[in-house]
């Protein structure tokens, strides 16, 4: 379904207004002290772990391979479930095998992309949702104390969305035969990295 021009313009406009409003609050800088206080620190956190980055990009690429509605549904579900995992981490509830879960996420999601696997919607949602809990929990336990939980959280969630967006953008290559092959290669590479992460987590 081709996007209507009016809708695209309106959505761009809405996005721009939101960005300006959010940006203004950042420059106003409420009581920002310490590293964890700000939007920028929160925005940078999801990019700091290579395993997280690869898994989230894999979610985006897989969504692009699957097409609608999975493409959008995964992007709606992942942040919410990840935040639930982070919530558990923040309140100090332990989750066993977090590092193993994260490594498995890279391995399995990479394999899904590599094999261009098309499971049922429920299976795809379950797979992504379960791994989102592990990623969220790891982030939640790593969040240092700061002055502004809101700005940090905003940066953190937006960065996660950007990583998915990056994956979806890469997934656009799926339109071309060579692109399909490249994406499957990238998936296989992510799966191999997942094996390395798993090895590191188990040792």
């Amino acid at each position, binding site marked *: *379904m081709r*996007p*209507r021009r*009016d*809708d*695209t313009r*309106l*959505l761009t*406009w*809405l996005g721009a*207004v*939101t960005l300006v*409003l*959010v940006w*203004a*609050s950042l420059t*106003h800088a*409420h*009581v920002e002290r310490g590293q*964890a206080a700000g939007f920028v620190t929160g925005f940078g956190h999801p990019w700091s772990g290579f395993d997280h980055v690869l898994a989230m990009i894999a979610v985006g690429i897989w969504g692009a391979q699957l097409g*609608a509605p999975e493409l*959008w549904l995964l*992007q*709606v*579900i992942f*942040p*919410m479930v*990840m*935040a*639930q995992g*982070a*919530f558990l*981490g*923040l*309140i*100090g509830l332990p989750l066993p095998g977090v590092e193993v879960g994260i490594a498995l996420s890279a391995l399995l999601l990479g394999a899904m992309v590599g094999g261009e696997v098309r499971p049922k919607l429920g299976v795809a949602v379950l797979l992504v949702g379960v791994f989102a809990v592990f990623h969220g929990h790891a982030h*939640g336990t790593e*969040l240092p*104390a*700061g*002055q*502004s*939980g*809101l*700005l*940090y*959280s*905003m940066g*953190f*969630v*937006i960065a996660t*969305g950007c990583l998915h967006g990056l994956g979806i953008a890469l997934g656009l290559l799926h339109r071309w035969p060579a692109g399909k092959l490249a994406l499957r290669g990238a998936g296989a590479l992510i799966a191999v990295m997942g094996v390395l992460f798993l090895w590191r987590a188990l040792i």
Partner: protein
Amino acid sequence: MSGPDRQPTWRQALGAGGALLLWPWYAEAHLVTTGLGPVYDGIGHLLMTPEDLLPVLALALCAGLQGAGSGRRVLSVLPSAWFVGGCVGLLAHGLPEFPLSALSLCILGTLTAVELPLSLPVVTALALGLGLGHGVLNGVAMQQAGTGVRGLLGSLAALVVLVALVAAGVVSLHEQWTRIAVRVAGSWMAAIGLLMLGWALRGGN
């Protein structure tokens, strides 16, 4: 999804949500000083305070997805409730600590993300709860900054314009992918709210 057999559950959820939203929270008086007077300070306060701005945006997105009727209802109820809450806040002397913004974002962000059909009374109650709760916070902030009712009126003006623009913009979206983009924004807001709640429970914020 919203059949008659589901209504009692929704009423209970609404009651609980409304009670949570009405629970007062402590106010951080970080009012913006524009140098242009209290009305502009009030305008700047809403636009530069994400604790208020994000829940308002979430409600506008949610109402927009529900249709023009819900958008109009929010546009009429929210500012009125905000003003009443603001007047109460102007008279209040300090409030207990409570993560109101986090809860507002969790509830409104989730409702936006799942795009569950909501009846007009439910939308009205959400607008009422958000307006009263955040209005009280605004009123306290205005009182502590000394801008008084004029500051409150400024924030109210910004609120009306913001809600009207965003809700109308979402109502006019027709393509499925644009509406899903709004739902993704809702899921981000719910996630932010949940993280804030975790921070608050941990004592980090």
